[in-house]
C-alpha cells in the first residue's frame, strides 16, 4: 500500500550532512526518512502556529520557554 514517491537532490553543507547522519543513527532511520519526519513536524508546527497557537519547551522545573518560529 506504499504511496508513489518522487526523487529530489538535496544539497547540504558538511555540517548539515553531519547533523543528518547523526540524526539518522540516533533515530534509527534512513536519511530520507529523517528528512520526511522533519517535514511532517515542521508542517504540523506551522499549521498550529497559523491557527494562532504558540510553541513552548518545558523543562523539569516546569518553566516554559516560547520557541520563536521563523
Amino acid at each position, binding site marked *: *500500500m506504499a504511496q508513489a514517491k518522487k526523487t529530489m537532490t538535496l544539497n547540504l553543507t558538511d555540517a548539515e550532512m553531519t547533523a543528518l547522519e547523526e540524526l539518522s543513527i540516533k*533515530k534509527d*532511520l534512513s536519511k530520507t526518512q529523517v528528512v520526511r519526519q522533519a517535514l*511532517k513536524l515542521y*508542517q*504540523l508546527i506551522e499549521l498550529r502556529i497559523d491557527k494562532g497557537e504558540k510553541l513552548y519547551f518545558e523543562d523539569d522545573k516546569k518553566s516554559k520557554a516560547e520557541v520563536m518560529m521563523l
Partner: protein
Amino acid sequence: MSVEKSRIFLLHTESGAETEGELWDKITDQQLHDWESQWVPALAFGVQRLQKARTHNSKWPPSSTWDWREKIAAVRDATFSHSSFCVMCDGQTQGLIILDSSGRPERRCRIENQRSKDLLYVELVEVAPWNRKEFHQTPRYRGVGGLLIAAAIQKSQEEGFKGRLGLHSLPLANSFYANKCGMHDLGGDSDNDGLRYFEMTPGQASAFLAKGNKS
C-alpha cells in the same frame, strides 16, 4: 480521494467460514456513514442491554461516546502525518483505525532499548459493535482488531519505524494488546487519564506478522 483496497479474510464465527473482505487505506465518507447509521444505534442498543443486565459499568465500552466524524475531520485537514485504514466486509464497515507518524515528543518510544526513536502511534482504533465480545457472546467476525494492528505495523515499516508502535489502551483492550499482540505493557500513564501505555518493538512486530491473524 483515491483509495487502495487489498484483499483480506475474516473468520465468520457462526459458520466457521473464512469470508473475503477488504482493507482500505483510508477512512472515507462511506465508513463515516456506516458509523452513524449502523455503529451508533448498535452501540446504544448494546449499552442498553448491559444496563438491563446490570453489568458493572467498568465492563462498558467507553468508545460508545467516540465521534469518528469529528476525529476524521480533525486529522483530514491537518497534515500528512496522519493516516487511516478500515476493514470492510459484507458491504459494511467492520473496523476503523487512525495513526499518527508525526514523531511528536510525547509520541516517541519509551522502552529503554528504543527510547526516543520514532514510532507509529495508534491514535484511535475500534471494531464494529457486532464484532465485540462485550456485547455478543458470539461476535459476527473475528480478527478485525488483529488486521488493523497488522496494517499499522506495515505502515510503521513503510515509514521506516521498523514496526515500532505505541498506544494507550482502554481497560477492556489491555489483554488484547498484551497477550494477542505481544506488546510491552509500560503501565498506567498519568498524562493520559491513567490509561496503560503499550509499545511494540521491531521483534514483536515481526513475530505478530509471522503469526498471522491467529490467537
